[in-house]
């Protein structure tokens, strides 16, 4: 019986070795090595790997991850930076081959990278997923990320939401608004930021309600100060129809966010702001008020 198992393992091993994409393996080896111009040479291997019938998804992903347009040829100095959109396209092609695996990898791994170009390439790929791939799955993964306990995931998700939302606010703004009720403060915080970056006027009522909750009678109804403060900033980014809401905050003398609202209004340059600001100047200075009780 034991021998039979060994035989099975051996057969699988042999079959496995035979079906491995050699160029891909070589490229990955190169990356791990400390050879000169290793990334360029690895990219060359990844490109060659694409000509083989297996493991194309990973080759595409790595081509997007490592900067390549004109790959390395021995004895040449030519090296052209790949455009972000080209790198994003490769990442998207990886997604096309193995959508589940690479969607998760893009959101929870690639976006975390320190290299801004890699982050932008991943964003580019996700934009393509949004328009050409499984949009619902993308949205649900982004929601999972923004609800995550890991700050990096929440940050990535708000950033992607902000960019995707600019092109399709009517779908994404309601989703983010719903997230404003999430139990995790940091999730709400990132949703507020994303709404500001989208800049859609659709978000104004929800943000205004959140800000106003600061004056709620009961503590449980009051949103955290930092979230409310960010909501004011977001209203400032939205501008336009948000101006009256910001003015309302300036006029609410019990609000702790008046300074934030004034700052947001100053950058918008709207002349409607002048009158409430002049009113604020007229407010009483420090003084002693005698109250006769007898």
């Amino acid at each position, binding site marked *: 019986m034991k021998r039979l198992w060994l035989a099975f393992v051996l057969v699988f091993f042999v079959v496995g070795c035979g079906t491995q994409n050699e160029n891909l393996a070589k490229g990955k080896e190169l990356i791990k090595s400390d050879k000169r111009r290793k990334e360029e040479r690895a990219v060359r291997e990844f490109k060659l790997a694409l000509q083989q019938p297996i493991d194309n998804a990973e080759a595409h992903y790595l081509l997007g991850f490592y900067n390549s347009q004109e790959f390395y040829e021995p004895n040449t100095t030519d090296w052209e930076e790949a455009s972000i959109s080209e790198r994003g396209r490769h990442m998207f092609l990886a997604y096309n081959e193995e959508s589940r695996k690479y969607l998760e990898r893009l959101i929870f791994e690639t976006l975390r990278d320190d290299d801004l170009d890699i982050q932008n390439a991943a964003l580019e790929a996700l934009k393509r997923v949004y328009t050409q791939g499984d949009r619902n799955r993308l949205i649900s993964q982004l929601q999972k990320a923004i609800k995550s306990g890991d700050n990096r995931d929440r940050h990535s998700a708000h950033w992607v939401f902000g960019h995707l939302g600019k092109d399709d606010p009517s779908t994404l703004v309601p989703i983010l608004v719903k997230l404003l009720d999430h139990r995790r403060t940091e999730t709400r915080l990132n949703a507020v930021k994303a709404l500001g970056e989208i800049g859609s006027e659709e978000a104004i009522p929800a943000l205004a309600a959140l800000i106003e909750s600061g004056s709620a009678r009961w*503590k449980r109804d009051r949103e955290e100060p930092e979230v409310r403060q960010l909501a004011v900033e977001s209203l400032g980014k939205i501008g336009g129809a948000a101006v009256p809401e910001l003015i309302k905050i300036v006029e609410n*003398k*019990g609000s*702790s966010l008046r300074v934030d609202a004034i700052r947001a209004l100053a950058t918008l340059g709207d*002349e409607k702001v002048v009158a409430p600001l002049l009113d604020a100047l*007229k*407010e009483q200075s*420090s003084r002693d008020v005698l109250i006769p*009780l007898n």
Partner: protein
Amino acid sequence: MLKKIIRLGKLRHFVGILPLFTLVFGFGCDNRHYDDRLQMEVQQLDSDLMNRWATSGVVVLDVASNGPAHKAQLETGELISHVIVEYPVKSAGDFNSAMKKALDEDNNLILYLKDKPPIRIALRRRGDKMGLSVEGNGTVRVNQIRPGTPAANADIQVGDIVEKIVDERNIYSLADYKKTLGKVVKHNLTFRTSELIGVKIAAVNALGDLGDARALDPLIDLFQNSHEFSLRKAAISSLQRLVELSVLNDIFQEFQRENVNQLPADSLQANQLESAAILGLLTVDRVENTATLKAPFGTQFRHRSEALYRSITEGQIAELAQQYIQIQVEPEQEIRRACLSILGVLKPTSAIDALVTVLENSAEIPGIRFQAGLALSQIGEPAVDALITAFEKEDTSTKDIAASALGGIGGNKARDRLISALETTDEAAILLTLVDAVAKIGDAPSIRALERQRERYQQDADSGLRIFLDEVFSNLAKKTM
């Protein structure tokens, strides 16, 4: 089995405690209170505001008309930060009860003695003795001071007449407010309100950024009448910004006349274009030859520019600045500096005398005197005579600043005076400035004069002036290349 029962038992207790817990911590944090006696509603200040600005208290939300709060002219939005209660002292009994009430909780009080400034007395611990006893009816006098007590350390003598005791309490929360007001039944009380300076400063800054003419008078009013330095400083900075914006009117009128947000860059005044770009109002693309107003501010400001320009030129801002550049009028140097900048931008000839006074004032900070000289050189030709007169003065600094300003203005008259001074002066400190000023003018007679100086000091290899002259000539050579 037994364990299970115990566990269930614990759970039962917990279930019992839970609603109570929620009631206290979840629902119990009411932040509003209607004061029946004063007939007004107050709200506790947001805790985040407390942390940000180190202010505390309760905000007046609403005042019922004709109630005590309304009669006292307390306004909505005011922040009550202290409650002050006065206890008149007419007998030894009054004194003892007032002292007990005033020391309660915060362990300190303010004692008012006849013909003496108020004395603040604080006890270290609750229950400590103040060490003071009094006697009398109608007129209450100090009859004993125990050594080693807070009273002995204060400026109190036996025989002093006690007039009243004042209790001043910080209000940190709504609970403090309710507690303090609950104790005061018969006596008059005073609310001390705190101005939220942060809001006003933000509003002042925003008004400066917005460039609206309506802000001018309120800002001047605030600048002249506020007692808060931070507010006055913000107000003058905003006025400075408005002045800087107003002098760009020509350029904004071009955009307004054409009713566009983009114009060919070479059709606009070069120096104004540069200033507008520095202030972030527009972007200039030399390759495309375009000047584009930045949205939202630049594009909106073109509609307001004319009104602002008119208000500034017709208003009193130049006179105001002239007044506040004098150290006798304005002790804060930052404000004097801002006023000098305003004069430099507006260039009013009426300010020449005032600027020369600052320039000549040896009690003034050298940097500010120099800035006055700079403002005079910005005024230009009309200031030349006044600067030449200042240059004739004995004081070296005055001579130095005046020479430098004359060099900045240029023109034949300034040049001739500087050259003649260069050829007759031996004072090393002034000579350097004169060389620099003449080099700044840089026309043919100036260069000839500098060459004569070079010959004069040729033998003197170590002289600082010689080294400086060499540097000046090498810079001139670079320019002509």
